[in-house]
């Protein structure tokens, strides 16, 4: 139905060579200018993959579509696709969907069982929903199948544990993390040094640092945090505060969002942004914050470590060489809680068996150590990925070398956060998350803009969530 190539392949088994040539002709048409180098380097290019004891060409001729977001870390992967196609004979069509729509598109595809996307860049918070509806396959059977995975080569356990856990339900993996991030403190080292400030280790210190630097009349603000409404915006920052204040999402099986800790965390969020952040911050997502920081109008912000790519670009940033990194400050309960965000790849359960195998081969290629390195420090283009998925790669000297322009303490801060501060219960992992995230985002925003008091906003969210969860 959706794979014309495979039909041709099955009909004419005797003409494999001709078909291969046709396929490589197709690749030629796509590869275009890189053709000459690609053809020469091909065997050497594919050697690290061929050392895996699996048959990469077992479903050659298949074609799959993959939905990702428009981001450099996926562009780098897209640039390597000719290598994957040469390795496996599987055609991959990458479709870029803006981050605001990819969840809806994927959900629409999965729920209507059209099988449009073999896999997509999935939000880790959506796995409970996918699994409750049986829309995606458990991946343990792919990982455990010797014909599909060579465990000694793929080394699943080398992938960062926090992200593996975030993409698993009840211990079973449903997605393989490709790229991810941790939330870290980004601060102006030059300004901090001049005033004798140290990067904050507690939220109180964060506020006092912000106070020391805040000078709105000279367009200098102490601190910024994402303030825009959305499950991925204000509900990206708030859960870390909530956990740091000792909040717990569950009372028994019920989701509770209006505990005294929750109110204190929201009060802190509202007060800090009101006092020390630029007035427009309530409409800001991370690109706006990183822009403001790179223009030198912010003393500090807390966001994904990958946002730092903007800061080290000398064409756009006025703060190159003046940036330092540190972990999330501890909350009153002594806990740092960073995000478990990652883009993982699940397998669409509505696919044919052959297409599932092709999708798995794509996923294991994309998340393998070799491809991770090739999309990071080995990548020819200017954007080297910083969200690589493996512990061994994070600790490699090549990665440290590629990231040295990012700023002071970049890898150490990110790695320490990854190993110590990640928290699978950062947000409530339930199938109803899309509705809960949206409800929380709306309530938090009404508190941030002063429409409602924190307690009132969270009580309303609680009432609505109770309604949503009612069985």
């Amino acid at each position: 139905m959706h794979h014309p190539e495979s039909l041709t392949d099955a009909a004419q088994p005797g003409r494999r060579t001709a078909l291969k040539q046709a396929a490589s002709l197709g690749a030629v048409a796509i590869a275009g200018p890189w053709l000459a180098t690609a053809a020469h380097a091909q065997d050497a290019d594919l050697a690290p993959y061929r050392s895996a004891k699996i048959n990469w060409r077992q479903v050659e001729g298949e074609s799959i579509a993959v939905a990702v977001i428009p981001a450099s870390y996926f562009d780098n992967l897209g640039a390597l696709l000719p290598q994957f196609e040469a390795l496996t004979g599987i055609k991959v069509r990458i479709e870029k969907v803006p981050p605001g729509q990819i969840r809806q598109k994927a959900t629409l595809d999965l729920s209507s069982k059209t099988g449009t996307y073999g896999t997509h860049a999935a939000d880790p918070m959506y796995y409970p929903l996918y699994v409750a509806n049986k829309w995606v396959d458990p991946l343990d059977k792919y990982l455990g199948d010797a014909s599909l995975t060579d465990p000694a080569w793929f080394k699943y356990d080398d992938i960062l544990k926090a992200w593996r856990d975030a993409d698993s339900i009840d211990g079973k993996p449903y997605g393989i993390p490709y790229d991810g991030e941790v939330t870290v403190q980004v601060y102006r080292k030059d300004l901090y040094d001049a005033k004798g400030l140290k990067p904050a280790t507690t939220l109180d210190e964060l506020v006092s640092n912000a106070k020391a630097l805040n000078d709105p009349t000279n367009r200098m603000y102490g601190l910024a945090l994402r303030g825009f409404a959305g499950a991925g915006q204000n509900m990206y920052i708030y859960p870390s505060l909530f956990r740091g204040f000792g909040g717990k999402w569950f009372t028994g099986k019920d989701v509770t969002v209006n505990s005294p800790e929750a109110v204190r965390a929201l009060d802190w969020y509202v007060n800090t942004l009101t006092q020390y952040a630029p007035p427009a911050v309530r409409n800001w997502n991370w690109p706006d914050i990183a822009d403001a920081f790179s223009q030198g109008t912010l003393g500090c912000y807390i966001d994904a470590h990958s946002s730092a790519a903007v800061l080290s670009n000398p064409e756009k940033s006025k703060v190159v060489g003046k940036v330092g990194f540190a972990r999330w400050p501890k909350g009153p309960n002594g806990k740092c809680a960073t995000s478990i965000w990652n883009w993982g790849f699940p397998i669409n359960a509505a696919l044919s068996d052959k297409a599932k195998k092709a999708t798995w081969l794509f996923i294991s290629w994309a998340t393998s150590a070799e491809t991770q390195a090739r999309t990071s420090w080995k990548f020819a283009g200017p954007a080297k990925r910083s969200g690589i998925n493996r512990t061994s790669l994070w600790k490699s000297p090549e990665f440290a070398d590629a990231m040295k322009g990012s700023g002071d303490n970049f890898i150490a801060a990110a790695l320490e956060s990854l190993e110590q501060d990640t928290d699978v219960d950062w947000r409530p992992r339930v199938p109803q998350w899309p509705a809960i995230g949206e409800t929380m985002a709306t309530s938090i925003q009404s508190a941030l803009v002063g429409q409602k008091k924190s307690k009132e906003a969270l009580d309303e969210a609680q009432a609505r969530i109770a309604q949503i969860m009612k069985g």
Partner: protein
Amino acid sequence: MAVATGGTRSLAAQERRFAFALLAPALLALLLVTTAPLVYLAWNSLNRIDLGMPWMSGFAGLDNYAKMGADPRFWNSLWLTLIYTASTVVLQVVVGLSLALLVLQIPKGQGVLRVGAILPIVLAPVVVGLFWRTLVLAPDVGLVDVATRALGLGSHNWLGDPQLALISVIAIHTWQWTPFAFLVLLATLSTLPGDIFEAARLDRAGAWQRFRYITLPMIRPAIVMVVIMRMMTALSAFAAIFAVTGGGPGSSTEILNLYAYRTSFTELNIGYGSSLAMVLLGITLAVSWLMFRLRKAKS
């Protein structure tokens, strides 16, 4: 004669049948693309379809509708829909009529104004929304903010403050659709016979009296038509608000249409979202029916 009548009758019937056969493909297409989805929507609204809780799915009767009674966000969105529709329609008619009366006085260059007036209408609402959000209402750099600061009124967070955001989306809708009212009313005004006004002037009717007792009654059908059409658009407004505020901040610009969308596609509660959409459909139908009746009764 009886035979002849029977003949024409069967001929007429034949013609009707033929006409129907010609219409059938179009009717069928219409049925498929409008009626069928509508029936499906109505059916969904009677079911519990919550993708977050697939184990709860099933026929629910009128549960979804009953649920609305205790849903504060529904009442909030209904109230906002009312405010939004009433204020945009009134503003469009008042501003459009004023502009039309003003332009009528201009002896030359009306054509250019008419062409210029069409421009906002032909823009896609999403484009209008993004344009206002990034160029007109953005803090610091937006046109409106620059203007208010120059006038000493200070900088405002036009889309971040709940009340200003509602005013902003009303202003945007009014900006985009006032030209429609303006064009229709201008065309109607220019067809009014001059001799009546001359007679009125001879009878010493003042400008206000002439407007109140002659112009208004004569353009009344046009105004009612404009009100009906603008109401339907305002009730089903979506794209511009979606692009500008997404219904926020909080739920302060979340009209019923946006609430239905958010419920269905963000919260994935398709059943409840469908019932919200059905309510919106009901309101739109009721309002249009009322307006049409009003139009018939008076004319």
